[in-house]
């Protein structure tokens, strides 16, 4: 079983195979993303009732929470591919790490901005230096730092190593963000969904939230494969399979 996974991983990591399989996956993932998002938005705006305390303003949660979850998920995924790239020298892992960084930065930005726009009417302020907010802002700087570092180093292999090391160093921030609401009891509220007893959210709100979370995750998989394909094509431009693809267009 393990052996089968290992051989599949190696086959998938071969650039031409990855390029063609990812190209076939992108429209399906994108389509599934659109369906989940349409359903989530419909249920979130037309079926879920207004909150008894927050009125309509809580509907921001349907994009805020999925964006925040995804910002952590992407970074964790990048830390894993960074480790794979460093240990096993799989080039595709380096490609995925750097392709995911701008998408991670995008969703971190979305989480921060929607949080601010929700915080203003609910907390009375766009921003406070609360532990959760500050550590999420650091996450945005980590993403931007990774992108800048990659752009600053000419040699591709050196750049990949530097990016992987920076990504792995920055991963300490992830548990800090996750537990910040428990360690420092400042402004941001504790978890509603992921606590161990029953979630303190009504099903009519939980379902659109989970649909939107799924849609965002599918969006990430779609765009990271799109970016990774471009990156692979550029790196392999001298090889015969790329020349065939270019010539056949």
């Amino acid at each position, binding site marked *: 079983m393990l052996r089968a996974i290992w051989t599949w991983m190696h086959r998938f990591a071969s650039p031409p195979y990855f390029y063609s399989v990812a190209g076939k996956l992108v429209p399906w993932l994108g389509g599934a993303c659109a369906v989940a998002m349409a359903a989530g938005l419909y249920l979130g705006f037309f079926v879920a009732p207004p909150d008894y305390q927050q009125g309509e303003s809580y509907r921001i949660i349907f994009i805020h929470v999925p964006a925040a979850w995804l910002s952590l998920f992407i970074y964790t995924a990048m830390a894993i591919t960074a480790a794979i790239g460093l240990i096993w020298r799989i080039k595709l892992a380096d490609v995925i790490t750097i392709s995911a960084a701008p998408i991670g930065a995008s969703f971190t930005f979305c989480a921060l901005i929607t949080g601010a726009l929700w915080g*203003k009417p609910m907390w009375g302020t766009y921003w406070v230096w609360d532990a959760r907010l500050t550590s999420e802002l650091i996450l945005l700087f980590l993403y931007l730092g990774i992108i800048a570092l990659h752009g600053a180093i000419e040699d591709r292999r050196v750049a990949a190593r530097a990016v992987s090391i920076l990504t792995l160093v920055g991963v300490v921030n992830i548990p800090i963000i996750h537990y910040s609401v428990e360690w420092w009891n400042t402004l941001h509220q504790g978890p509603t969904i992921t606590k161990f007893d029953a979630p303190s959210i009504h099903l009519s709100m939980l379902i659109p939230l989970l649909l939107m979370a799924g849609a965002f995750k599918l969006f990430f998989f779609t*765009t990271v494969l799109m970016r990774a394909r471009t990156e692979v094509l550029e790196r392999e431009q001298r090889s015969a399979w790329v020349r065939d693809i270019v010539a056949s267009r």
Partner: protein
Amino acid sequence: MSNLSEFLHMGGYAFYIWWSYGIVAAVLIGNIITAAYRHKRLLRHLQRQQAREQSQSASTVA
């Protein structure tokens, strides 16, 4: 029509809700467009490069 304006009003939170959704929508669409554009641009670049190399090798043969 009053239903629509009531919906857009969002119980007085229209500003916060529509800016949130608008910015997120713009970021998502921007991500798709840049990814697709970068791919197209690279393919065009490689095509031109390949055509140039072919014409060069043809002229050296001649």
